[in-house]
């Protein structure tokens, strides 16, 4: 019985790792794994937490990189927006004088 538990946990870990490859957050993992593998989110979450304890450095880096990516995305979106705004404003410039 302990064996199967270990096996199960191993499987969950495997699943979590796959999700991490997709840069997913813990919550995202829980959702995906629950949806596709029928594993209770609480189990995923617990295993995740345990993994985090065992692999602190990795998860730290992972979290940081995710955050950075998020902020970068934000910045990029802002820039895109700015570009869009500026280009659209150029179009409307001609209408100023009546």
């Amino acid at each position: 019985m302990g064996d199967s538990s270990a096996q199960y946990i191993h499987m969950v870990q495997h699943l979590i790792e796959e999700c991490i490859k997709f840069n997913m957050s813990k919550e995202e993992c829980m959702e995906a794994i629950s949806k596709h593998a029928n594993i209770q989110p609480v189990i995923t979450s617990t295993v995740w937490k345990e993994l985090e304890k065992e692999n602190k450095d990795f998860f730290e880096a992972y979290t940081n990189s995710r955050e950075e990516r998020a902020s970068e995305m934000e910045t990029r979106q802002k820039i895109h927006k700015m570009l869009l705004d500026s280009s659209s404003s150029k179009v409307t410039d001609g209408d100023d004088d009546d």
Partner: protein
Amino acid sequence: MLAVSPFRSAIDGREGEMENFLIGDGDFLEFSGGNLLDIIDFDDLFVGINDEDVLPDLEMDPEILAEFSASGGEESELNTSVSVEKVEDDSVKEEDNFSGSGSSLKQGEEIVSTRDESVAVNGSPKKADKGRKTSTQAKNTQGKRKVKVDWTPELHRRFVQAVEHLGVDKAVPSRILELMEIDCLTRHNIASHLQKYRSHRKHMLAREAEAASWSQRRRLYGDGATGSGNKRQMSPWLAPTMGFPPMTPIHHFRPLHVWGHPSVDQSLMHKWPKHLPHSPSPPPPPRPPTWPLAPALHPPPPPPSDPSFWHSPHRRVPNCPTPGTACFPPTMAPMRFPTPSVPSIGVPTTPTGQTYSHTPLIDLHPSKESVDAAIGDVLSKPWQPLPLGLKTPSTDSVLVELQQQGISKIPPTCA
């Protein structure tokens, strides 16, 4: 270069610096005649002098030679001081004679040559040396021989200073000579060195320009790709995907710092792997580009007497570019991973293999299908190795945790 500094100081001086001579003579006095020849490397003295410019003045030499020979014969057993004094006197006379003629350079040479001659002659029976000196002198009288100048870093530095002072394009050898104030150089030496310097400079500037344009382009691409050029080193994409163990690639970015620009140069380095070996390392920021480095990559076509000298007036070719360039092709190319989430920018590529075995691109928003597929894969093939290889927590701790959450056993019977 020279073994004997007193000589140099005497030579460098203009007229009327016979005091140096005296001092030098004092040194002479310390040694017996025989030892002088051991200590003093006369060949060095003749370097840089005795070219055609000296021709007219050397005519005197045979006379002096004869004089010295005579005195040498007489005084071979006498104190060196006597002979030296004689030399000194003669030199003084010569100087007076020559004061009106030619440049002081020649005079300096003259003094040196005669002095040497006297020493050689008055020295112990080192006939070989004497013969050598005489023959050298004889050659000098013919004046066709050009002595090679040893362009030491110091010498070259003064040369560069003089040239910069005048302006590279306007620098005229005679003016450079004046500014450098080194008597043993001739206008001809300077002229040829100047030619080499200019050609080398042109090369260096061309490389610099090339490098600058590369880096500029890189920056443009980089900014376009990321929107923020900072912290590229972190490479957020890499860390999670490659998993824990292979964190090292991130460290590889560091060498780039040394090499090129702090930001973004990694961004598309792999794009131009071919260029890397060719493109010169742009001179590292602190180095003034008076004679830019880019060593080892582009020695000037006619190698000067000291090839490595060209590359660095101040110090020998550092290995800086070598590690820099070496770093690039192997480490950068595979490593660099341009932001995957911006396919609109024509940023090339997929990194070449490395650790991205099963997920070539990191998805910013992982598609449901791909996640589903991956998960399905795990479920169907549980024996496959863990992709990230994270350390497995102990079963017990997990179970304990789960029990706290209200789950008594796994796999749970009710999903």
